[in-house]
């Protein structure tokens, strides 16, 4: 799997898309898997708790779908598009630190069925997301 390394530190996988708010979104068939980026987990550091919206919940783009608590702060995870939550990663309720060790794999948070799968194309490309991180780190 190919990846981009931003500022020698933050890994961005090129097989998925991203949001300004540091979520990654991967489309598998008509299901979108959502998690947080390596950049986000490195900023949050020790993640100690995760909470989800119930599966079955209909959400609008930008709605809160999950929250993660770390020693440092709280992170909010937003819906990348309109759709329905179909599954949440309950394993993280007991082992939230998986997000730190494997943010792009086992540390996925929520699976959603988008109302309109074409919305996926509107998300940030890996290159665009890399640029937003660089800009944030500059300031």
């Amino acid at each position, binding site marked *: 799997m190919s990846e981009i390394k931003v500022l020698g530190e933050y890994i961005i996988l090129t097989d998925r898309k991203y949001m300004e708010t540091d979520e990654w979104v991967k489309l598998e068939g008509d299901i979108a898997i959502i998690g947080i980026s390596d950049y986000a987990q490195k900023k949050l*550091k*020790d993640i*100690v*708790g*995760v*909470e989800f919206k119930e599966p079955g919940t209909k959400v609008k783009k930008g709605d809160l779908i999950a*929250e993660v*608590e*770390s*020693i*440092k702060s*709280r992170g909010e995870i937003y819906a990348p598009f309109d759709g329905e939550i179909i599954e949440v990663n309950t394993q993280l*309720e007991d082992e*939230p*630190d998986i997000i*730190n060790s494997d943010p792009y794999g086992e540390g996925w948070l929520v699976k959603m069925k988008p109302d309109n799968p074409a919305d996926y194309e509107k998300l940030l490309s890996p290159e665009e997301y890399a640029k937003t991180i660089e800009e944030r780190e500059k300031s």
Partner: protein
Amino acid sequence: MVLKKSPLHEVHVELKASFEEFAGWYMPITYTSGIREHLAVREKAGVFDVSHMGRIKISGGDDALVFLQKLVPKELSKIGPGSMSGPTAFLNENAGFKDDVMLYNSGSEWYIVCNAVNREKILDWLNKWKTEWGANVGIEDITFDIVMMALQGPSSSELMEKIGLSKALELKMMQFHRNLESSYGKVFLVSRSGWTGEDGFEIWASPEVGAKIFKALVEYGATPAGLAARDTLRLEMGFVLYGHDIDENTTPVEARYWVWTPGKTGYIGYEALREVLRKGVDRIRVGVKMKKKVKAIPRGGDLVTVEGEVIGKISSGNYSPTMKRGIGMAYVDSKHALIGLEIEANIRGRGYPGKLVDFPILKK
């Protein structure tokens, strides 16, 4: 604002620390993981750079004692050379905290350790009263000349021996030695003290000697620990953090912070403190322990409720790596300050169950 850096900054860079702003300083927040660093201190030993703490020397022999006696509510005459005052405070005229501080009697002079965030305010405060009273004392900020490290945890003593400071092992809590010779050069001061609830030592030294000692302690097995772990460690013990749990509008009485000696009179804030003691308080600082299954973590500003009624507010909160759950401290109105009372912490608009507990929150 240009952030101040510790003289040990390069050591932390080598150890791959991640840094963040704290009280105007760019300090290590973690090296690997705040939780791992926290547990290392509870189980073995961790070493912190706490050079951001303000350190002020008050010289003038007996005049220094007289001067400080008028500024702090703790009786200092019984604190002999080589002893520390334990936590005390500079109070304002309303008995609110200017700062909580530690005083060190070093014979002909005293040392003050104050919070980084208050260093300049305290220097101004000391100079103001020196002028007002015409006190014959010297006030010198030595914060930038000398580094301060805290070695904390049950195996601290063994590590002190390894760096040639076995003489420090004879110290009891709140005692210190000056000018000990370590394997890496002379150290300015070594005390048996800390802010974690564990046995440990605080070492003051020149930046050169300090850097060698910090690196040596890490090589001998101390886990380098950052301010994230320092915060969760102090929280488990119920130790207050200035600006969060106490401030100029908080009295030591409501904070249940025993920084004064009953019977002592004639210091700044005395009249007001006496009045508070006579009248009692409207709010009280207590611990909060969340139910184990709760994944949300209480943070400063979150409201505390009982039966939907707001009874108080969290002043600081976080995850307890030792107890593996959210904990915090809160000011609750005194009618509801009932240890054991089941409450809800209102986190992001939702109530989560917990209860009020006494300090330390972590019972060892």
